[in-house]
Each structure stands twice: as C-alpha cells, then as structure tokens.
C-alpha cells in the first residue's frame, strides 16, 4: 500500500500547471466561447507536446492532469479527446463524443471530430443544432448517429466520469485559490475581508470538502471500479459546487460578472454538475452496488 502520488506524477502536474499558468485562460475561454478557437487550439497543441494526449492507458496520470486542467478552467473537448475517444478506439487529434443519455450532446462539435455512442455502436456523428450551455465556453451540439466506426465499451463512459471528477476537484481548487487571494486583499469595513470569521469558515469548509474528495478520485483511478468512480464523482461535484458558491459569496458582486475570471470557473462547475450523469444517478449507482454485498 502506497497511496500517494509519485515524484513523476507530481512533476507531471507541475509541468501542466506551469504551462497553463503562462496562458491567459480567461481570454482563451472568452474567445473559445465566441467561436474563435485559435488561442485554445494553440494551448492544446502545447499541452499535447508535453504528453497529455498520451495518457489514456494511465488513469492516475489522467486524473493528475485533469485536476490541473480543471484548476485553470481550460475549455475544449478534453475529456472526450484525451480519455473517452482512446477508450473507444478512436484515433486522431481532437475528438468529441456524445454518450446518451448521460452525455446527450457533443461538446465543441464545430472544432473536434464528432462521434456518438449509439447503444453498442460507435458512430461518426451528424451534427445538428447548437445549444447554449450556461458555461459559454461549452459549445454544445445536438448529434445523430452516422457512419458506424466500431464497437463501444462501458469503460469509455466510466473513464469520462473519472476524468470529470478530477476536473471538478481542480475547478474547486482553482476557485478556492482565487477566493483566498481575493479576501486577503479586498478590504471592507476597514480590514481585509478574510479576517471575518464567516469568510474564513466558508473557505475552510471548501478546503475540507476538496481534501476528502480528492482521495476518492485517486482511489477510483487506481481501482477503475464503477462504484468508486461514482463515489468520487458525487464527492467531487459537491465539493466543487460548494467551492463555487463560497467563492461567489466572498467575492460579492464582482464575482457575479463575466469580467472576473472566477465566474468562468463557477459557470463551468455549474454546467458540469449535471453533465456526465446527475448526482442522483451516481448516488444510486453507489448504493445499488452496496446491495449486493
């Protein structure tokens, strides 16, 4: 038993973090949201160069990377391209996959090669009408199954859910970092907002939730068990949403604007809460598996 990241895994996280820290992710996301994919694709190209596209066989490394991708609120069909498409035997650069009913729409189907899982079949997708997500950087499209390209596996959906759990932890962490920094600087009533006990306690609760959700995500990556994946997702999504609410609350009105980077992470958490399965569905999957003890 050794339940800790290796030095190499920590370095992988650090290198992704360093790369993303050098980019203006808010600008990237705003342009992506407006349909201008160039800066985003450029960033994904740089991520590919440090190997993030080649981790599909390494679930622990995947969750390490997805925590960083979440932390920086990177837009794009990342789960689909880095984890789901490879699990479905789809090769190539940027791909997007709808997996109804849990993932009914294809993310960024205007920039990535679109697929849809139709029962047992993996098909090219015929792209239909665009839909508006509450996260403007999530460009969703209706899809219909087209040409058959292969046979689907259940693992594809599960690895997507696993990566999303890690992404949510990262989003929560990014929100917590921003909030902690903001309340340390922002003054009201003659002192830093972060001196107020109510503010401290909001953020401490977020930290606790994130710290105890992360081991579930790591364990799910180790075991690959569907119950563990759903448990991780339940805890991660709740922790991320708690982070989003707390971050908004301690920011006050400025957090309620699109001008503030915090809000982009908040909207992404809001969107991801119901993508890749609802919390109710995941909880049901956990408890159902416990019936059969």
């Amino acid at each position, binding site marked *: 038993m050794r339940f800790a990241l290796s030095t190499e895994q920590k370095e992988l996280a650090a290198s992704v973090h360093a790369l993303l820290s050098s980019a203006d992710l808010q600008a990237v996301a705003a342009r992506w949201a407006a349909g201008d994919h160039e800066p985003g694709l450029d960033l994904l190209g740089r991520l590919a160069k440090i190997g993030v596209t080649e981790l599909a066989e390494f679930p622990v490394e995947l969750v390490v990377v997805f925590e960083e991708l979440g932390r920086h609120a990177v837009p794009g069909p990342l789960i689909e391209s880095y984890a789901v498409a490879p699990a479905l035997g789809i090769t190539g650069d940027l791909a997007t996959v709808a997996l109804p*009913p*849990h*993932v*009914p*729409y294809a993310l960024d189907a205007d920039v990535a090669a679109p697929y849809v899982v139709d029962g047992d079949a993996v098909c090219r997708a015929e792209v239909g009408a665009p*839909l*508006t*997500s*509450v*996260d*403007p950087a*999530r460009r*969703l499209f209706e899809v219909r199954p087209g040409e058959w390209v292969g046979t689907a596996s259940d693992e594809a959906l599960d690895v997507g859910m696993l990566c999303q759990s890690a992404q949510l932890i990262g989003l929560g962490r990014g929100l917590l970092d921003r909030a902690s920094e903001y309340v340390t600087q922002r*003054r*009201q*009533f003659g*002192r830093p907002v972060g*001196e*107020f*006990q*109510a*503010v401290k306690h909001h953020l401490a609760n977020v930290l606790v939730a994130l710290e105890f959700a992360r081991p579930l995500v790591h364990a799910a990556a180790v075991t690959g068990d569907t119950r563990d994946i759903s448990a991780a997702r339940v805890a991660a999504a709740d922790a991320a949403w708690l982070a989003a*609410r707390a971050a*908004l*609350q301690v920011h*006050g*009105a*400025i*957090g*309620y*604007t*699109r*001008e503030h980077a915090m*809000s982009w992470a*908040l*909207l992404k958490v*809001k*969107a*991801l*809460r*119901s*993508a890749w399965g*609802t*919390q*109710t569905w995941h*909880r*049901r999957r956990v408890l159902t598996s416990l019936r059969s003890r």
Partner: protein
Amino acid sequence: MDLDLDAKTLEFRDEVRDWLAEHVPRDPLPPMDSDEGFPLHREWERGLAEARLSAVTWPYEYGGRDASLLEWLVFEDEYYAAGAPSRVSANGIALLASTLFAFGTDEQRDRVLPRMARADDIWAQAWSEPEAGSDLAAVRSRATKTDGGWLLSGQKTWSSRASHADRAFGLFRSDPGAQRHRGLTYFMFDLRADGVTVRPIQQLDGVPGFAEIFLDDVFVPDDDVLGAPGEGWRVAMTTAGNERGLTLRSPGRFMAGAERLVDLWHANPDPRVADRVTDAWIGAQAYRLYTLGTISRLAEGGTLGAESSVNKLFWSELDVALHDTALDLLGADGELAGPRPPGWQSGHLFALSGPIYAGTNEIQRNVVAERVLGLPRGDR
C-alpha cells in the same frame, strides 16, 4: 386569526387574473437588460400602467389605485403565477418611491411618480462604489454645492438597470470633512446628463444587468435632492429596509416557483429528490404566511425593523435551494441556458445573486444576531 380574503380583495384578484390572462406575452420577452428586451419591457410596463396595475399601492393621483398591502400581495401572486415579465421599473417603484413618499416634497412626487408609474422614466439604483460594496457608508463620490444645485463627481458600480435606464438615485458625500454615515446627501440624477458615462457590466448570464456610472461634475438642481442635504444616510436607510424587506421580493415569485417545481417533479417523480421539492414548497408557503403576518402587523400600525434581515436570509436561501432542485431534476439538460428548458437556468443565476446583493447574507446574520437576539456588537 384568519386567512380569508374579503370580497373586495377577491374581486381585485379576479380583475388582475383576467387582465394578465389576456395580456401576458405567450413567449417570454428577451432579458430586460438586453438591447432588445429593454424597450419591450418598458412597453409592457406602460400597458400595466394603463390598467393601473404598475404600482397598485400608490395613491390614485400618482397612477396607483390605493391598494392595501394584502391586495398588493395578491397582485404579486397572480403576476408570478401568470409568468408575467420581470419588472423593469422595480428599482423606482420598490425603492425610490418609498423614499419619495417618506421624504419627498409634493413637487417631487408630482414630478417623479406619475412618470415612473408610466415607465416614462426607468430608474437605476446607484448605491455601491468600488470600495464600498456591502459597506454603504464608505461612499466617496462627492457632491459640491454650486449655484442652484450641486455638481456630482465620482464612481458608482453594480448599478442595476443603469445600462439602459433613464435616471438614477444614490448617495453622495456633500460634506467632504464628514466620515462614514455623516455628511451624505441623497440625489436623483439624469443618466443622460453631461458628464455621465455608463459602462455596462456583463453579469454571469452575459446580460448587462448592472453598470458602472462615472460622474464628472454632473449638474443636479436643488429640486433633485431628496430630504435635507446631509441627511442622506437616514433617507437611504428607509429605502434599504425596503430593498431588503417586504417590497422587493414578494411571495409570488416563490409560490409560483414552488408550484412549477412540483409540476416538474411530477413529470419525473424521483423519490430521491422528493424531499427537496417538498421543502421548497413548504418554504414558499412559510414565506407567504410570514408576509401575511407582517402585513397584518403593519395594518395595525406596526413597523418593519431588523426583520427585514430575517426576511432576506430566508427568501434568498429558499430561492437558491428551489432552483438548485429544479436543475437537478432536469438532468443533463440542467446545464442548458437557452429557451429550453424554460426559465430555470436564468432563475438559478438570478437566485445566486440573492445572498449577495442588498447587503450580503453574512452582514444580515450579524444584524439579526445583534439587533434581534441582542448579542454583543463586535467589529468582526
């Protein structure tokens, strides 16, 4: 103790219900703070005014119909139940008007209120400043006396409606030597006046629901001072009480929301979400009954005090919980923001602002603890 509506109130309710059934647009209007939606909302307000429904509790002479608070509540119930458009005139009718009734001159009421009732003027609030979010007393924008009036300079922010509105009201420091709550004056001013620059701010939903207002020696005549110069804090606090209390959030919003939530649940009756649906419905009932209690007390000469804070804590948390539950029931479609599914996403985004604006809920809890429970004041 009874909950029965008298015949006059029932008659009024039927009139409102019939009017709304005939007039509420079948498709929702575009957001009221969008370029497209704003004029449509103004037009809607004018229709309301023609039916004397835009400000029912006001005296007849200003465009109202002298309705009782109970009738107002019934109006609001019907309004929300009918899914009628958001009230683009709300800042004026709910906030400024109360202040005018309490502190305005006859001339000011005659001049301002009828235009407000008809939506000839749509009002923005201008409370906050960059360094004065929840701490309203930290106002730095200043008013300098000049011939026949004042010159306003400084910056306001989070001014709701200001992106498209005609006029605004807020506090300015008229005595540069005074600190905090002293030396403030309450002004009404024209957003189209020389020296005013408005910079819309995109909210979470992408719509510029509020704006920054930059003022550079903006002339305001003496007639547009509300209350006495230097008395602004006291004048404003009556409005703030209203904003946080009774008049801003009527039970109708929550009653209608809870009914819609129950319907949504019926369409997919997942027992795992049932208790949250039930609690939202119970919460809406509680809010309505609490409001009826308040109305009864006011009718007997009571006043509103710190219970405005109690009130705000309850409805703001109820609103978030109710919309959280709805989005969870919508499943994968819960993230959609377009016309499909109708309204829940925008309602949720709006609800998220509740615990922040008009005094954050953290501040409200302090107020409740100190002023209602008598706990010792502490500066943290």
